[in-house]
């Protein structure tokens, strides 16, 4: 084993489905894997497989503990996936936050530049960008050791994206591991400690010159 695998927060080995893979990847504590690639190349499928939402083969370890040894809810609480468009199971935004998380949710909403009273509103009244940020807050409050983010700032302007990136950077500094799918090569350069390109269901390391960008 290399140093990289022994210190890996998330270790992925032989992860595949009929549609994508196999994938092998290690994400260190504090590491951010940036993945770019065209639509339909398998980026979202990859994240869905890691958090076990789609049928897959292979194994994933969190700090050396195999996914297959824990229940999927326990796994998904620690390896939290946020899709590009999140779902909402209640008309009221507040219903998506447990009682003990509501103050933290308000504080984080303020930090992301959202209106103070946003939690009291209806999901249907949120703009796409507001919805995206609320979904991220929901995931951030899980305080998970690993986050899998699919286009987390696609509906945000430069300032909105910077606020999200600031929170992510703090979490990374505290040891969280992040797999970040993005269409924005600049974001990948800013955030990622390692960059990869997804093409036709295969992951390859991006060229070192920094041009490994999505078309």
């Amino acid at each position, binding site marked *: 084993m290399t140093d990289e695998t022994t210190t890996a927060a998330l270790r992925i080995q032989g992860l595949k489905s009929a549609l994508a893979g196999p994938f092998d990847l290690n994400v260190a504590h504090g590491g951010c894997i940036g993945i770019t690639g065209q639509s339909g190349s398998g980026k979202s499928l990859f994240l869905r497989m890691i958090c076990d939402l789609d049928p897959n083969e292979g194994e994933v370890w969190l700090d050396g503990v195999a996914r297959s040894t824990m229940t999927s809810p326990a796994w998904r609480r620690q390896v939290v996936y946020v*899709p590009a468009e999140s779902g909402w199971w209640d008309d009221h935004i507040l219903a998506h936050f447990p009682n003990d998380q509501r103050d933290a949710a308000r504080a984080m909403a303020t930090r992301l530049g959202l209106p103070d009273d946003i939690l009291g509103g209806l999901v249907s009244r949120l703009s796409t960008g507001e919805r995206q940020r609320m979904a991220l807050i929901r995931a951030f409050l899980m305080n998970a050791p690993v986050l899998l983010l699919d286009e987390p700032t696609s509906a945000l302007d430069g300032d909105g994206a910077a606020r999200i990136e600031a929170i992510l950077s703090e979490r990374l500094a505290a040891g969280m591991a992040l797999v970040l799918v993005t269409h924005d090569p600049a974001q990948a350069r800013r955030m990622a400690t390692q960059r990869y390109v997804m093409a036709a269901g295969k992951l390859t390391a991006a060229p070192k010159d920094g041009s490994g960008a999505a078309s």
Partner: protein
Amino acid sequence: MNAISLTPQDLAIASSLILFDAALSLVLHLRLHWKIIIASARMVGQLVLIGFVLKWIFAINNPAVTLGLIVLMVLIAARETAARPERRFKGQTGLGIGAASVASATLVTALFALTTALRPHPWYDPHYAVPLAGILLGNILNATSLSLDAFLGSIAREKPAVEARLTLGATYWQAATPFVRDAIRRGLVPIINQMSAAGVVTLPGIMTGQILAGLDPLEAVKYQILLMFLLAGGSGLAAAGAAYLAAWRLTDERQRLRLDRLQARKG
């Protein structure tokens, strides 16, 4: 009062109403005239046939034959429940779920009635068992297919909401139970409406038939009340059975939402 026996001529005169419907369809371009004629022809053929079958079954009075007929009715009902929902399972799963919930609900309710309220001798007397199974099946079929349709339609439509809960660490059953609950409610709505409207807005078919056939209205009413209770019980069992079975088939050992087990939706 004796029943007024109907002659074929009486029915032929009544069938003019079908021709009226067909004419209406032609005039208003409803494009229903063939459907109306075919459906009414089917209805006549099927009912005459079942009339002869029942006559034969009552005459030979053999429990095995009675059971065979009821099993056949259950299978036809199961096929209907699997075919009706807009979203369907791949393969034979829908048929299996339909058969399991329709058969168990019918069996439990019919046996309950035959051993408590009705108690014919013998309890499997086809005069009671077959018509009872028939009326139960009609309602149970309806409750099952409504429940199945509601569950599969809503969970497929709400996939992002279900998966949002899963990604935040909920179990599959936590995420799916609201849809199961709604599906069961949907399955029970018709019988609740039927009970509320009975005697006020509508005279239920069984009761009307018995009164027309010469039975004392209060006797007919008692039968109708018993039947409503049986139908409500059967509908509840069937709607719950179908929704839970469908929910169970849409997940796996890793608590995923397996919509890939449904057929792709057509246009």
